[in-house]
């Protein structure tokens, strides 16, 4: 038989697995934070009308009257609800355990265990499975190989339970991503409301300034009072809103980073399962061809049906391989090479995953650091906002917020 001996038949993972770690999320500065979520012109004009009405009422009051103070209080309280809502959500990312990245539990641990188990079965680590005959002429050739293939039978239960756990781990990753999707929808909404508040705040700033300039001639005392109270608080609040917006945008992007990582990891887990099952199937075929031994891996076969979609591609590849292997003479080294290649595929996959995890961890760390810094900064004014609200409530019960985003009403 004149088979080409130079190449082993292609195995399951013919296409190269590539896992790319997403780039870290850079720190978002407050001055670049706004403008991500668009506010419609219609909404803007509604908000502007609100601001105009509020200012008209403010200017109409005597600067020393309690009514004026009440209106200024409303400015300091402006957007509190939006701020609190956004603040409550944007640090969720930090609570989210990076479960897949942890080597001591979950997917990481299962992958490591799979690798150890698979290494025990690797024909290239067993050395001279075929040369035994030459060394000990007395010992029948088949036995060494038979022993080797018997190892599969005892390992299959272990492997299938690891693969099972990996499938569960994959489900957990998908569940995480589902939760992230839901959270991102909420964050988007929170950002929309913040954006509206920022619009109100900025409009208020410019209008108050205009009003104060007007009043400079007619009523300088009032102009001064408005500048010192209303304008001061508006500017402070604008800064708070922008800072929170920056944190929220960053949290939003960071969640996307986690999601992308999970997607890549799911790919990795899929590929690791596929290559493992592929190698085991190759072993079945090789055993059949070389020793005429029917290697029955029931548990792995059972697993095939449950993970049918991942294995689909492998199955097709394997059928082609089977024919090839059987064509090659028993005793030739090609079937064993094929098997070694199948194991190499598993190692390649795992190496890719490990490399990916290293990169992803780096990105993650940078993102977490950046976000933690921003969240820390935002804590200060959130405490301030809380204090103000508590004070206001003490004075005269909760005041309905006149100035709130349209979307939050």
């Amino acid at each position, binding site marked *: 038989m004149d088979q080409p001996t130079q190449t082993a038949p292609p195995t399951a993972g013919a296409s190269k697995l590539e896992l790319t770690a997403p780039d870290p999320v850079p720190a978002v500065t407050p001055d670049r934070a706004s403008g991500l979520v668009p506010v419609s012109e219609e909404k803007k004009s509604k908000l502007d009308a609100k601001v105009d009405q509020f200012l008209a009422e403010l200017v109409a009051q005597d600067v020393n009257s309690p009514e004026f103070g009440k209106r200024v209080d409303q400015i300091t309280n402006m957007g509190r609800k939006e701020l609190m809502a956004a603040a409550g959500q944007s640090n969720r990312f930090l609570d989210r355990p990076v479960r897949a990245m942890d080597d001591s539990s979950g997917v990481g641990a299962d992958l490591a265990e799979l690798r150890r188990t698979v290494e025990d079965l690797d024909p290239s680590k067993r050395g001279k499975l075929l040369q035994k005959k030459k060394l000990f002429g007395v010992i029948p050739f088949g036995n060494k190989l038979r022993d080797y293939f018997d190892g599969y039978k005892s390992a299959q239960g272990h492997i299938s339970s690891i693969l099972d756990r990996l499938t569960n781990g994959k*489900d957990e990753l*998908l*569940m995480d*991503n*589902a*939760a992230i*999707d*839901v*959270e991102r*929808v*909420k964050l988007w909404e929170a950002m929309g409301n913040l954006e509206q508040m920022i619009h109100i705040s900025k409009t208020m700033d410019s209008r108050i300034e205009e009003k104060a300039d007007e009043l400079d001639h007619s009523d300088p005392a009032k102009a001064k009072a408005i500048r010192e109270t209303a304008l001061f608080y508006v500017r402070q609040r604008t800064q708070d809103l922008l800072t929170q917006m920056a944190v929220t945008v960053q949290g939003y992007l960071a969640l996307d980073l986690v999601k992308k990582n999970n*997607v890549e990891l799911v790919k990795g887990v899929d590929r690791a399962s596929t290559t493992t099952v592929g190698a085991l199937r190759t072993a079945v075929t090789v055993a059949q061809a070389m020793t005429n031994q029917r290697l029955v891996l029931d548990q792995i076969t059972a697993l095939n049906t449950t993970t049918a979609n991942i294995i689909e591609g492998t199955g097709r590849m394997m059928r082609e391989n089977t024919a090839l292997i059987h064509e090659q003479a028993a005793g030739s080294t090609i079937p064993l090479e094929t098997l070694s290649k199948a194991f190499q595929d598993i190692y390649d996959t795992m190496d890719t995953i490990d490399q990916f995890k290293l990169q992803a961890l780096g990105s993650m760390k940078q993102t977490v650091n950046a976000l933690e810094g921003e969240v820390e900064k935002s804590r200060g004014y959130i405490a301030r906002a809380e204090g103000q609200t508590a004070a206001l409530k003490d004075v005269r*019960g*909760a005041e*309905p917020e006149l100035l709130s985003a349209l979307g939050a009403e």
Partner: protein
Amino acid sequence: MVTASDHDAVMRSAGAVIPNQRARRTGSIGERSKALKRRKAVQKLAVGAGGAAAVVIAAIVAGMILNGIGFVGVMIAFGLILLAFVFAALLPGLPEPTPETIRQADLKTLAGKTEIWLERQRPALPAPAVTLIDGIGIRLDQLSPQLAMLGENDPAASEVRKLVGEYLPEMINGYRAIPEPLRRKDNGGSTPEEQLIGGLKTIDREIETMTGQIARGELDKLATRGRFLELKYDEGAADRD
């Protein structure tokens, strides 16, 4: 001739009388307080029935030992059975909730106890406040099953406890501490009555918001489940955002 202000005064005094009557007519402002009261009534009935059963057993035993207890014996037994029910009926009813007991109530009975406390306050409150109290009763009913799901140390639980166990009684007691004639006198822009109503409205709204917030977690969980199924079984869903 009746002037407009006279008319107002008449309406106001009528309004002050109407809630008192209604308070007497409808006992409970919410399902939770009703359930608490019902449970107490069942407990009393059980005490009475237990006593009656004890008397009957005693009568049977006595009859067996004495070889019949005779007409007088039967009559005495009947008398004792009646006495058992009378005793049960006279047992102390539900302990009157006070702001202190409400604050210490466990989450399951918090809403019910507050409702009972509010029911007791109704006769002393002006008509619009009574309507608001009825509304708060309904809100508390809605809140109650959600509260039962929370842990005792949940921040949301302590928020609710503060609102319902502290702010609400403080508001109403504060109002009741004001002498009757002053309640409708202007005090810094608004009358105490208006301030009470404003406060109750805020509390009503806040209970609703809290109910929504507690439900938020469950809503998210469901949305996540749905999204998970999409990601897992619906090809291409991962690309759609």
